[in-house]
């Protein structure tokens, strides 16, 4: 009976044997190499699941139009004037808000088996996160461009010109990278992708609204002014307004870099600690 049985397997023994016998053992990849590879994975995911670009295109459109036309007249007297003030703010806010998906993405990854694979390979651990964050830069850039283009259409004319806009983008990307580490902490602490999303939104709203994005803080009660001035996003908005109007000062930019350094100093080690202990207890 066994003799008449067809060969059930589609696995080719000879090829398999030679593939298994291969003894090539390259050395460990360097930190940069591993991070670039993880960024490549993030880009592939965008390619295969383009739906995830929806939130980075529709959300900025919604925010820009809503705030300009809904509040513009009331807040600044005229829409035309308000656009000059608002677009740099919306630009920062949009990207800052999108960073919160980072925690969600990380949590989803952990829930899936691929996380175990990464953990069992002997490469530089932070590369998983650094790569993911680098991949996100593409999403942030896209979202930022949507805001600027739409802003241009409705009358935004930055005095800082193309250079000012480009420098703003770079500055915001650096900030977004730094802020992401806070979201990865949440992604590692919370049990499910859903709860991560919920808590992230709850943190994200006050973080973006208690700022100078929509109105001048001078109109706010004093305690709120204190909060607003401590909020790193306020400093980014100020610096970006400066860059886009060609009036940025070194102090403004310096404050942003300081905020970035503080964010990374606190949250990156915390993330790495939580990451290496995740699931190992």
């Amino acid at each position, binding site marked *: 009976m066994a003799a008449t049985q067809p060969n059930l*397997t589609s696995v*080719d023994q000879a090829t*398999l044997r030679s593939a298994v016998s291969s003894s090539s053992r390259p050395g460990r990849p360097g930190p940069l190499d591993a991070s670039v590879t993880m960024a*490549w994975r993030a880009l592939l995911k965008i390619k*295969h*699941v383009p739906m995830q670009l929806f939130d980075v295109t529709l959300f900025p459109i919604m925010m820009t139009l809503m705030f300009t036309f809904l509040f513009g007249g009331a807040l600044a007297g005229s829409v035309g004037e308000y656009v000059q003030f608002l677009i740099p703010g919306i630009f920062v806010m949009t990207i800052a808000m999108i960073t919160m998906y980072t925690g969600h993405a990380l949590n989803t990854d952990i829930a899936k088996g691929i*996380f175990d*694979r990464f953990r069992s*390979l002997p490469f530089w651990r932070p590369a998983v996160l650094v790569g993911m964050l680098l991949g996100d830069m593409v999403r942030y850039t896209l979202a930022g461009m949507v805001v600027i283009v739409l802003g241009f259409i409705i009358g935004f004319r930055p005095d800082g010109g193309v250079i000012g806009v480009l420098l703003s983008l770079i500055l915001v990307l650096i900030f977004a990278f730094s802020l992401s580490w806070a979201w990865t902490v949440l992604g590692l602490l919370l049990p499910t992708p859903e709860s991560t999303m919920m808590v992230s939104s709850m943190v994200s709203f006050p973080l973006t609204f208690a700022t100078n994005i929509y109105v001048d803080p001078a109109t706010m009660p004093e305690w709120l002014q204190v909060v607003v001035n401590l909020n790193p996003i306020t400093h980014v908005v100020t610096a970006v307004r400066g860059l886009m109007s060609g009036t940025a000062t070194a102090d403004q930019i310096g404050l942003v870099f300081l905020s970035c350094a503080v964010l990374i100093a606190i949250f990156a080690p915390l993330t790495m600690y939580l990451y290496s202990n995740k*699931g190992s207890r």
Partner: protein
Amino acid sequence: MTAVKHAIDVKGLRKSYGKTEVLKGIDLEVKRGSLVALLGPNGAGKTTTIRILATLLKPDSGSVQIFGQDVVKEPDAARQRVSLTGQFASVDEDLTGLENLMLVARLLGFSWKQAKTRSTELLAAFGLTEAADRQVKKYSGGMRRRLDIAASIVISPEILFLDEPTTGLDPRSRRQVWDIVRTLLQTGTTILLTTQYLEEADQLADRIVVIDHGAVIADGTSGELKKSVGSGTVRLRLQQAEQRPEAEQILARALGVPIHLEKDQTSLSAQISDPDLASAALSLLVDAGIAFTDFSLGQPSLDEVFLALTGESLDEEETSTEQEIA
């Protein structure tokens, strides 16, 4: 003797989650180049054990050595020599098969070009060439499992851990995975696999370690395990059903053990400890004029082994309340 290091050497491995003791002191040795099956029902502690060995989980106490090296103290050193195919596929569902393998190859230090070459080679070896550019979420269970194993051997590991590699697979896919496992073994890979299937352990393993409720309850070759239960099972089929009561009497006297009457009215079976008794019993039957059409002296199944070891069947969840007397 002391110079010979086992591929895997585990002593007194313990692990608790809160107050639940999941591993109660596991001892395990795996010889270089051999395949040991960790056999046990759901919840026995197989995954916990294997995750500790693969450096994904820290034990509460006990020692784990891979080729004499301490895994808990030097996880990175171990990670270079071992590889794990987990119970649930560790692949990225959104990516294609090729991309998945390239990702792993890159993270192991291959250049982009080498990564592509190696991945293509592995896809061919695992019969996945046609599916190379398809997203893994569109793969069947068997294909996913094969890709997962392929990802585990991008660099041929010295030790491969396979956690329930065939659970949930159809018979054909199971056969394919078995073929892969045998080939890996032939090329010198040491393999520790877990399974709930007795047949799988019987088919593949040099040695079987049976665990239940976090403790090792038996350890030996499939043959040794069976011997510990009794050397085997005698089965007889009579020509005439009406002669069965007489045959039962004669056999009971000759073998000195209880005789099972099978459902089909003509068959009998008995667990015996001494195979020589069987031939004596048979000649007594012939003398009494009882004719039989079929006779076999076989080893007990691993199901029977498990039943004898734990007092409970693998399929049942209930714990037996007897025992404890000896």
